[in-house]
């Protein structure tokens, strides 16, 4: 979910220095260039001669040389690295190309005007997953009121009209199971449809669910929503060990039935797997099982977060996860194609990990606005850093706290000192802000996920080189800042 808002770009920043460069200006509020053909050039009109280069050891005496903003990489010996420190040979320079070396530094400007809403319908849940980041089910149940949902829908639809967008988005998520507030889910969707129709807009709608759904609900989802993200851990015994009903009964059979129903209807869905220290060794089997039996659009595997009910669990962000992920990708071509880890995404060049820094508009059951769907409760740790809005009294809209939303907007990788020297920074983009706060609230100082991101991103670069003939890779990337403006 990404709230599409105006994005201003801070040009003239030298990505190697992580500070404004001299003489080129640094105009606040400058709008992003919408053409990817824009190129940074020096005063003579030539491309910058020295790209931002990173070097990683990959063998006993070999080094991976990676130019993230030029989408290029090769492997060489120490002498080559030394040569490239001095500018390299013309042939290597030609290989690196003269691509746009402008760092993808962009952030929203002005008050939030999202065109996508995430409705966190309830914190109630029909499962008691052992690692639930929200500890769903432990707090008194809270349910969103219909007028709250309608207010959020009206707000994003009005923004879409004002911004001349062709569509708006309503996503159902929750620090609970949104399908437990079924009546509002149905009603709000039908309401959003009517708003879309009245304004000549297209409605995009999706649901994040644990998949423990009755048949009639599955049928409704298939018939009404565009897609779903189903939390499911793979092998039935793994699912049943981690994701149980309050009675202690496993949920695999019901979720499997949901996946089968989605497949038989040709419905678009992805699977989100949580990997614990205990289940990591079975990740490959789980992914192979899902690939063989089902047709998801993507399978996202993430190590368990030590938050909520999982805070006392054994650390999962380890080298074991890295090897398990690699093994899972090797099980089949399909697995290699579908499997994702959120921090390793070589194809993306951005300064923002997710929509938190881009005015995500997540409405809690109480009607307040959070930048993160994982921070869905006003009483959660660090909630004050994410909740940036509330229903505006006496009007149909929302009022926002500039101090809070500017705070989350500023949480981009170009401002993270710890990440400045990391080769993966323009794709990982500083990883998840919420999780980072749980690691170290004072400052971002890395965590186990950093090693996972780095290892898997390095794998992706090597795969690119291998697939490009084995010697060097020269590719192109989606520049998220420009695409999403």
């Amino acid at each position, binding site marked *: *979910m990404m709230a599409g808002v105006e994005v201003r770009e801070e040009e003239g920043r030298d990505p*190697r220095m992580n500070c404004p460069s001299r003489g080129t200006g640094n105009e606040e509020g400058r709008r992003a260039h919408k053409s990817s053909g824009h190129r940074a050039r020096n005063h003579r009109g030539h491309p910058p001669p020295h790209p931002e280069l990173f*070097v*990683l050891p*990959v063998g006993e*005496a*070999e080094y991976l040389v990676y130019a993230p903003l030029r989408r290029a990489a090769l492997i*060489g*010996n*120490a*002498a*080559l*690295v030394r040569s490239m420190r001095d500018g390299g040979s013309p042939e290597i320079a030609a*290989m690196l190309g003269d691509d746009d070396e402008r760092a993808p530094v962009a952030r929203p400007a002005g008050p939030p005007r999202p065109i996508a809403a995430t409705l966190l319908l309830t914190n109630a849940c029909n499962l008691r997953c052992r690692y639930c980041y929200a500890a769903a089910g432990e707090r008194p149940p809270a349910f969103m009121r219909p007028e709250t949902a309608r207010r959020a829908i009206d707000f994003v639809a009005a923004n879409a009209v004002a911004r001349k967008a062709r569509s708006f988005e309503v996503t159902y998520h929750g620090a609970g199971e949104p399908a437990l507030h079924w009546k509002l889910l149905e009603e709000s969707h039908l309401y959003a449809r009517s708003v879309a129709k009245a304004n000549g807009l297209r409605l*995009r709608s999706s649901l994040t669910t644990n998949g423990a*759904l*009755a*048949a009639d609900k599955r049928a409704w989802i298939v018939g009404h929503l565009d*897609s779903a993200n189903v939390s499911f851990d793979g*092998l*039935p*015994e793994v699912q049943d060990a981690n994701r149980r009903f309050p*009675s202690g009964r496993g949920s695999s059979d*019901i979720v499997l*039935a949901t996946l*089968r*129903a989605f497949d038989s209807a040709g419905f*678009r869905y992805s699977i989100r797997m949580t990997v614990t220290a205990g289940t990591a060794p079975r990740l*490959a*089997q789980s992914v*192979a*099982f899902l*690939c*063989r039996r089902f047709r998801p*659009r*993507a399978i996202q595997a993430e190590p368990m977060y030590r938050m909520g009910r999982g805070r006392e669990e054994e650390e999962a962000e380890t080298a074991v996860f890295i090897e398990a992920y690699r*093994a899972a990708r*090797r*099980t*089949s*071509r*399909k*697995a290699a194609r579908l499997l994702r880890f*959120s921090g390793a*995404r070589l*194809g*993306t060049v951005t300064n923002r990990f997710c929509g938190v820094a881009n005015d995500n508009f997540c409405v809690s059951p109480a009607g307040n606005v959070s930048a993160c769907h994982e921070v869905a409760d006003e009483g959660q740790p660090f909630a004050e850093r994410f909740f940036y809005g509330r229903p505006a009294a006496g009007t149909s809209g929302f009022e926002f706290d500039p101090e809070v939303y500017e705070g989350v907007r500023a949480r981009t990788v170009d401002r993270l000192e710890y990440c400045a*020297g*990391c080769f993966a920074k323009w794709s990982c983009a500083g990883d998840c802000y919420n999780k980072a706060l749980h690691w170290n609230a004072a*400052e971002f*100082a890395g965590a186990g996920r950093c090693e996972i991101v780095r290892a898997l991103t390095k794998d*992706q670069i090597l*795969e690119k080189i*291998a697939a*490009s*003939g*084995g*010697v*060097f890779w020269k590719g192109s990337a*989606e520049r998220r800042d420009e695409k999403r403006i």
Partner: protein
Amino acid sequence: MKKGFEDRIHDIPLPAKARGEVPGVCSVERSWDGWKLTRRDLMGLVAAGVFAGLPRTARAACTTGAYAHEIVVGSLSFSPDGKTLVSAGRDRFVKFWSIPGGALFRSVATADVPFQVAVSPDGSQIAVAMDNGHLELWPFAGGTKRALQGHTAAVKGVAFTPDGSQLVSVSLDRTTKVWSVANATLVRSFTDSTDTMLQAAVPRAGLLRDVSDGRRAANEALAPAQSYLVTSGTQVYLRSLATGAILRAVAGKAFALNPNGEFLAADDGTKLYMYAFPSLAPNASVVQKQNATSLSYSADGKLLSIAYTGAPAQLYSAPDLTLTLETGASAGANLATAMDPQNQYLAVASGQSILLFGLPSGNVLPVCFMDVAASSPASSGIQYLMGGVVYTAGCTSPIPDGGVCTCDCVPGDCPCVYDTGCSCDSDTGCDCDTDTGCSCDSDTGCECVGDVGCSCDSDYGCGCVDDTGCGCDGDTGCGCDGDSGCGCDSE
């Protein structure tokens, strides 16, 4: 402030500068336990133009999981009219494909693993060299196969003489044999005491220069028809076709003779050589350091294609050996390349797939060589019936003459119902991170290639097929395997 990462090129510590060290690069390829790095010669790569911004071709038209053969394609040969491509796969099939459509119109099982196929110059016969001494002649149009019996070990190479009257075969039994095509009988057999021969060719006669002084033949009398034979093992050997005697030997393993018989190109894994023929005087060479598996000339002799086991096929101009094109990403080991006698197409065997390129541009053509029997179940294509056999071709392939559509089939306009057009090919990330975009749903199916835990149907995940999907909290759940209830207790 906690210290961050130091990956920037000026931050990373390097070993002390070694005496005489020169910049070098490595190639990388997947190995069973990770990545295999191979030192490559930087200057050689530069000389070969690898860094010179060479055009790279796009990928072919197959949907994921659509293959020509179930196991790697080992040999390719065009018919003389250029309308048919014959492929031999390690899956023990020889297949016939229409060109340029790429539609499969015949698939023939072989007695053993075929290593090479060759179409006779008149297009009437096919020679199939196989493992365990099997060598056969097949009528091109189909019919009774004729076995050529005599080899006692794998027959690795086979070639027709230019007039098509004889066939030469080389084998791991260290003999080179000459056969009569008309009678399917052995004419001569030479013992290869010097080397084990893996490839054979017989040059055209009329334009040969005499080996004794290298001058161009004034007439055919100076170079009697079919007087020479070329075979290769650890070297390339010029031999007498009449006696098998080795006249000259030069560096090279895989080789190709140009159509006029004036040049011989060879590759020994370190260099690509261009020799004058038949003198075998070196004309040009290029540092390669890749193991070439197959070389092929275009009909006009101006282009030379080379397939490599671990790198994309390349196209060179000949005889000057200027690299003109890299054919882009490989789908696996490239064991064969062939150019059609009409000078229009280049075919490259890449893993289980066949790629077709236009000449002289080298642009990949949107043709999918797809056999449903060798492809993943969910790969999409058009299906048609021909000669009582159901064939499947890629979406962009036209149905060959005589074929009748049977499924998902609109001639020339395949609906590809399962393919919604995601272009995430070659991208490992596909980057659908918002998970609403990428629609790569042409699912190719789990292939369990790594065998690290494919959970077969009888193993995990009893699907409880009768489960109606009750999600009630009181449901005690499907018990799998034998659970006849699976019902929703509270309903």
